[in-house]
């Protein structure tokens, strides 16, 4: 732990992530204003003006408060989508790697297709049909991303199932489930953790992009992507409306990327740069 604290990747990354998580958890307590209340008097109020440290948007909503509440959306989407994808991918990858055969073949072919179909086109198609929404966005991400986790777990399982300690466990009469979860999965956790951390950063960016296009979360909920879409329309008159939410996204994503990089260096010395 002391060594970790001396690594700037870890300290800066952890500090950023903790701050964002804190903001999301205690949003109602720390936000200076109601994030959805429109006040005509403060329309496009400049930063540092009375009561609005980061200014206000076109209908007078406080930007700082909206950024604080927006952290909830970004974190929910980032964490939930990766969690669902990891669970799905791990289960399929374990089974495919352990038993092989048809399951394995189907998995690898669907992985090929998913890898060649860009997420945004898939999301456009699906959202065009089911309509936008927080949970729909999370599910679309999870359904398109579980394959990358499945591939990693499958690869690890293929090499681990031949190891002597696994053979020994089998000889002692351990069930398939016990071998898979207890003996193989625990050893495959390292690469998944790294990939998942970087995946959270990636999905926060994706959600902001989808919401910016009007294909993400409900525009009435304060979210960073939605704020940027608003700000784009006022770029000629009010730079702050688009600038601050974008900074919030960048810093948050940077935090997760730093943690992911640090984890990769720590857990997998071969990938150390």
């Amino acid at each position: 732990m002391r060594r970790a604290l001396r690594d700037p990747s870890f300290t800066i990354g952890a500090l950023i992530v903790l701050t964002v998580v804190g903001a999301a958890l205690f949003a109602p307590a720390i936000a200076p204003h109601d994030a959805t209340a429109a006040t005509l008097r403060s329309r496009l109020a400049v930063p540092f003006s009375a009561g609005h440290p980061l200014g206000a948007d076109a209908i007078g909503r406080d930007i700082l408060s909206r950024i604080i509440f927006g952290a909830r959306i970004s974190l929910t989407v980032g964490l939930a989508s990766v969690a669902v994808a990891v669970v799905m991918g791990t289960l399929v990858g374990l089974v495919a790697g352990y038993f092989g055969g048809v399951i394995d073949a189907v998995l690898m072919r669907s992985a090929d297709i998913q890898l060649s179909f860009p997420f945004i086109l898939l999301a456009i198609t699906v959202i065009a049909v089911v309509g936008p929404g927080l949970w729909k966005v999370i599910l679309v991400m999870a359904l398109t991303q579980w394959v990358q986790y499945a591939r990693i777990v499958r690869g690890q399982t293929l090499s681990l199932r031949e190891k002597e300690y696994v053979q020994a466990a089998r000889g002692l009469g351990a069930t398939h489930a016990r071998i898979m979860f207890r003996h193989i999965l625990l050893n495959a956790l390292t690469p998944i953790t790294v990939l998942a951390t970087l995946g959270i950063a990636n999905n926060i960016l994706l959600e902001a992009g989808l919401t910016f296009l009007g294909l993400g979360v409900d525009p009435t909920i304060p979210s960073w992507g939605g704020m940027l879409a608003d700000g784009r329309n006022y770029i000629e008159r009010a730079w702050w409306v688009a600038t601050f939410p974008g900074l919030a996204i960048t810093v948050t994503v940077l935090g997760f990327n730093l943690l992911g990089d640090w984890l990769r260096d720590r857990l997998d010395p071969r990938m150390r740069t």
Partner: protein
Amino acid sequence: MVTFLLRRLLQSVFVLVGITLFVSFTIRLSGDPAVAMFQGSSAPTEEQLALIRERLGTDRPFVEQYLDFVVGALRGDLGTSFRTGGPVAAAVAARFPATVGLALAALGISLTLAIPLGVWAARRRGSQVDLTIRVVTLFGLSFPNFWLGIMLILIFGVQLRWLPPSGYEGPISFVLPSLTLGLILASSTTRLVRSALLDVLGEQYVVTARAKGVREKVVVYRHALRTALIPVVTFVGLQIGGLIGGVVIIEQVFAWPGLGSLALNAISFRDYPMLQGTITVLALFIASINLLVDLSYAALDPRIRYA
């Protein structure tokens, strides 16, 4: 080599069939387009609906409709737009150059930046230069592309008034959107060039070349970089899909007349043939680039050709 070519071609066809099937099927799930066409106007009678279904061909079984679409697409016919009544293929063809031009310009910018920067960082591993490049590219990976686009508009379009802030006003309009996408793509590519070159610089043939007294420039550029570019080419191929995704978003930021805005407009007007046509053409473009990348990869590395 022939077996490899055939196998790879077959795989592309397989992927395209998978994608078009998925898109057609998903779009059909969204309900009756005949009803959608009457949205906002007075309720249609059952006869009106039946007439429109017949005209659109949506009264026939899904398999038949899909096969029709495939046969038409092979002849360059992507169907008729619900909204304009004109051929989808013509609308897509008119927008295609703007989107592909943007993607290629971005790719060019990213490679022009990434290869020299990656080489520079790798040759001075651990130095101040290396650290700076690593920190800057990490920031680059964390930027939302559309925010970078908005900031570039703010600085060069609104404040300095050097460049057109949006729309298409001739080649000069390419600068800001392609720079936005290129800078972000350059971040990940620079990191990859750096680590690929570091790997290769440790190889025995590089050590041998150095021991023979070959000049450092020749060792790095002629001997090492060539091998290091193999994973870079693969990576660039894998990034094409993501790059097209980026273009779709960036087109909205810059009011760019490309396929992305065509697809997004099609969604808001429930113009399903237009959406299906646009996505099919984008998927075809991505699949072709991936095919080209795989073939050039095989040309670069004999181990793949004969595997």
